């Protein structure tokens, strides 16, 4: 396997971060920690926004979000992702798309 740092990829992108107002939230963190054994969001998010912590918790930082919708759709069992678009003008701003 080739080591890849997603941060290095995201660094090339342009964002206007809506500080303190994440557009995606985990509805019930306890569900991720206790119920969810698979935590696919921590593997399949193409921007690596979700991190599996050692204690079973999942943390979410939306700053690098590409607004694709993967996490929302992939969370089929618990529907534990509250997903909105960022406020107008905020979030990813594709230079090329």
């Amino acid at each position, binding site marked *: *396997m*080739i080591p*890849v740092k*997603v941060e290095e*990829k*995201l660094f*090339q*992108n342009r964002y*206007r971060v809506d500080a303190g107002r994440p557009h995606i939230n985990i509805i019930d963190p306890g569900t991720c920690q206790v119920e969810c054994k*698979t935590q*696919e969001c921590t*593997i*399949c998010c*193409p*921007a*690596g926004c979700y991190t599996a912590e050692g204690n079973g918790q999942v943390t979410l930082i939306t700053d690098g979000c*590409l*607004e*694709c*919708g*993967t996490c*929302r*759709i*992939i969370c*089929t069992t618990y*529907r534990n992702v509250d*997903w*909105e*678009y*960022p*406020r*107008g*003008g905020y*979030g*990813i*701003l*594709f*230079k*090329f*798309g």
Partner: protein
Amino acid sequence: MDEKFDAIVVGAGPSGNAAAYTLAKAGLKVLQIERGEYPGSKNVQGAILYSKALEEIIPDFRDDAPLERHVIEQQMWVLDDASYVGSTYRSAEFNQEPFNRYTIVRAQFDKWFSKRVQDAGALLVCETTVTNLIMDRDRVIGVQTDREGGSVYADVVILADGVNSLLAKKAGFHAELEPKDVALAVKEIHFLPEETIQSRFNIGEGEGVVIEMAGKITQGMMGTGFLYTNKDSLTIGVGCMLSDFKQQKITPYMLLEQMKAHPAIKPLIDGGEMKEYTAHLIPEGGYKAMPQLYGDGWMIVGDSGMFVNAVHREGSNLAMTTGRYAAETIIDLKEKKLPMTARNLALYQGRLEDSFVMKVLKKYKNMPEIFHKNNQFFTTYPELVNRAAHTMLTVDGVDKKTKEREIRKSFKQRRSLFGLMGDAFKMWRAFE
């Protein structure tokens, strides 16, 4: 803003722009709302532009649209770990104007398209997210935005809000997407001097190559990779069904990185400067996964309506065509002074049924299911085909007849005679 419009279009991608342009051109009062800083800033595509769909809306688009290269060569690769078997179609006919397809860079292209929409008379508001549809019982009468006092009203709202289509979901017009109905694609754009691209791909100025790839690069998932030549950049990406990503627990950017390291791909992108990394969902559920497309005061166009032909990698052309049909339906009703009821807007469905759009989606309606259940098409066969080519092309003193026998045996060992026949039948069923 208590102003009332004839139509509100949510989104400024290909479907929204096609709809807004067609409506404005016919003299209707149109408001278009885009959440990005500028049209294109939230939009992602490979991207190939098929001329026909745009030509029918803006016949002279070639005069000033930002087009990268016209495609003269299409390659199809089937990859194993260290090799590929490929086919190439290149034709001088593709070098004759008017060109049939182009590579484009969406941020630039969408900006251009939007300029045309505004010139036609539509009012565009950017940096504004539509948060909800405003309903009067079952009828959509306007939209709520995240601007202060941001409610606006119209006779009809066209939802061109893209694959996630949150608005239609919130309103209950369609259910949440399922992982099996969407592909997740990731891609990068790499910049290289124009001359380097031309010599590397054996093309002249303005000419382009498209490479589609299947096989080991998707690591057993149903999907494909692609490499497109732009003017002074290359787009490289890979997309697979989200259900496969979920099941096999594969990280998309790792998949892309592995693909870029393939010995046949690496030299093609060598030395390029990566300037953007993007991800996007593609609605590939096909005909069987399509939602209701219209109702009282609303219509759905483009990706939000699952208008993608995954087999032929067509999406933006269907988006533009459905946007145009939706607009034409509204124009017809306006002329006849008929209200925008579900009953009247059903004409949109009729237009779609009569056109290539629904015909092509119906034709491939079994395809997603067949490929979902038979991943040997993405794993076993690419490997076998590559091994067969290797066996035949290696000169090692073994006669060709024996080699042929070995190849036949390898196919039968891996899939059994019954399996091979079944696969042939499934392929026929998928494409019939």
